[in-house]
């Protein structure tokens, strides 16, 4: 078990809080978009962009970089925010989200913004894109990892399981999936809409190594990725148990916040709440 230094955890908590504030600011400016998912994945994205990924924000096409494929493109505000804070582009550009001519398309587009790696949005097609990428890299003996972040509801899509079968068959140990298990989707709770459980057993049956973590605990996020890197015979999927809307109490776990942005008054309130938390989101909510 690897322990992150306290100062590292504090640093990550502060970055995550800044990312959350940016998400709220972007969404209220855009007037549309998704709120719950991005807030719920803020800690995971922060852990990746500020600790886990082998990347260089100034050289987004650096050949040896780890590839982070975002399958559920609709949570892209969190990716854009993390990328901006990491130095891929100026923070002010976040305000252009979803506006005509922007590089920050409503769902991410490869050709629009260096660093987003692939175009995504239509659910269920990210894991197979990541698997194809990983397969190509593996047969060429490349060292980088391919990460694929997915939503939980897109585990309802057949294409996802075609990919899971493929990655299992070809033992893609350079592929690490991460499922944003926040239990909500547009129409309600996943287990009411179309149950996913037992999700762990499903992936195990497809010959994957499966890990489960608290997606708001930086040590658990980092440790899971370290373990996944050590698994040689199989691809690994990390089921990250996340709280949708994490960081803003009144919207946490409320599926109605899946696909809407805050209005101006709500945004002001949410930002004030986030500012009081400082770097303490984790401890405030445990």
């Amino acid at each position, binding site marked *: 078990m690897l322990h992150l230094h306290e100062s590292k955890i504090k640093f990550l908590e502060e970055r995550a809080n800044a990312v959350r504030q940016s998400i709220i600011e972007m969404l209220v400016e855009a007037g549309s978009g998704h709120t719950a998912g991005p807030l719920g994945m803020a800690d995971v994205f922060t852990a990746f962009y500020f600790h886990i990924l082998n990347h260089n924000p100034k050289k987004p096409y650096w050949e040896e970089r780890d590839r982070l494929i975002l399958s559920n493109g609709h949570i892209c505000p969190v990716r854009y925010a993390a990328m901006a804070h990491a130095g891929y582009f100026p923070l002010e550009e976040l305000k252009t989200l979803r506006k005509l001519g922007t590089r920050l398309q409503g769902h991410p587009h490869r050709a629009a913004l260096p660093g987003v790696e692939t175009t995504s949005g239509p659910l269920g097609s990210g894991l197979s894109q990541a698997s194809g990428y990983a*397969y190509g890299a593996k047969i060429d003996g490349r060292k980088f990892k391919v990460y694929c972040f997915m939503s939980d509801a897109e585990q309802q899509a057949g294409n996802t399981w075609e990919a899971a079968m493929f990655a299992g068959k070809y033992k893609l140990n350079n592929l690490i999936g991460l499922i944003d298990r926040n239990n909500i989707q547009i129409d309600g709770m996943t287990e009411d809409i179309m149950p996913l459980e037992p999700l762990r057993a499903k992936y195990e049956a497809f010959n994957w190594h499966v890990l489960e973590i608290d997606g708001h605990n930086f040590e658990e996020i980092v440790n899971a990725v370290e373990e996944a890197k050590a698994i040689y015979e199989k691809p690994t999927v990390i089921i990250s148990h996340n709280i949708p809307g994490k960081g803003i109490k009144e919207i946490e776990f409320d599926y109605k916040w899946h696909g809407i942005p805050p209005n101006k008054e709500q945004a002001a309130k949410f930002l004030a709440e986030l500012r009081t938390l400082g770097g303490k989101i984790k401890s405030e909510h445990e």
Partner: protein
Amino acid sequence: MPINPKVKLVENILEKEKLEQAPTRKGYGEGLLAAGELNEKIVALCADLTESTQMHLFAKKFPQRFIEMGVAEQNLATIAAGLANYGKIPFISSYAMFSPGRNWEQIRTTICYNDVPVKIAGSHAGVSVGPDGATHQAVEDIAIMRPIPNMTVINPCDTNEAKKATMAAALVNGPVYLRFAREKTPVFTTLDTPFEVGKAEIFWDSLIEVRLQSALDVAIIACGPLVHNAILATADLEKEGIKIRVINNHTIKPMDEKTIIQAAKDSGAVVTVEEHQVQGGMGSAVAEVLAKNYPVPIEFVGVQNRFGESGTPNELIEHFGMGVSHIKEAVKKVLKRKIK
């Protein structure tokens, strides 16, 4: 015989029974192998139809670069998108009914919008698939591929052209849809017949020697193996004094607008011929070009808003109105509509 000497077609082109017969998918298999030998970035993916799509030639020569996908066409397209994003040039094969039939959105978003160089080879297109029946007869594939930005769409007329088209597709810096047929059809082009993506070729011109082009009566614009039927129909019609130009319009997108518009100007009437629904296919694409640039009467030979059915390939081509006699009828019909 008024065959364009520049296109080097076989000499006995009108003797259908004596011509060598081969399916266009055969040329695909040979072209893929040849392209694979020239470029090691090329990988091949197949959805459980390796031999019937003719990918087995590549698979045998380059087992490390061949990926068996099983019956999973959505995955076929998206795995290829990932491979291409990484830096490979993937060719993906299945029957056209399933790829691009089943995986359209994946092709549209993860290949075309992503703008990565995946080559989609749809085999067994058209009703000439024969006894398998309508479930396996793709006659809508051109219509669903050609409106997608970044996509190139090619339907070769025989196995020789199929090989050239496959090798050319490997060099196109973007997605390509290649359309092939299951059944053996006449081989009437030669190794010397020119092929260039986006360049339609005049195969036959009744006035090629007299150079009085404006005296043409009609232009037949065809694609796929039916180009040969168009030539047979033309040879008959010439005997009645009708002056015709036959164009092999293999690249449906981007279309060779210059050649199409010139044909309309020289003839004043057009017949399109394709083994596809007349809605949204090659003929529709020709109509889009002509309606905007030089409107003339057009008749559309193709499948008329119907599903296919079981039968022998030749029976089905006749049954669905794409035989030599049907092309002749269409020519006479369009001549009556012609503005004098």
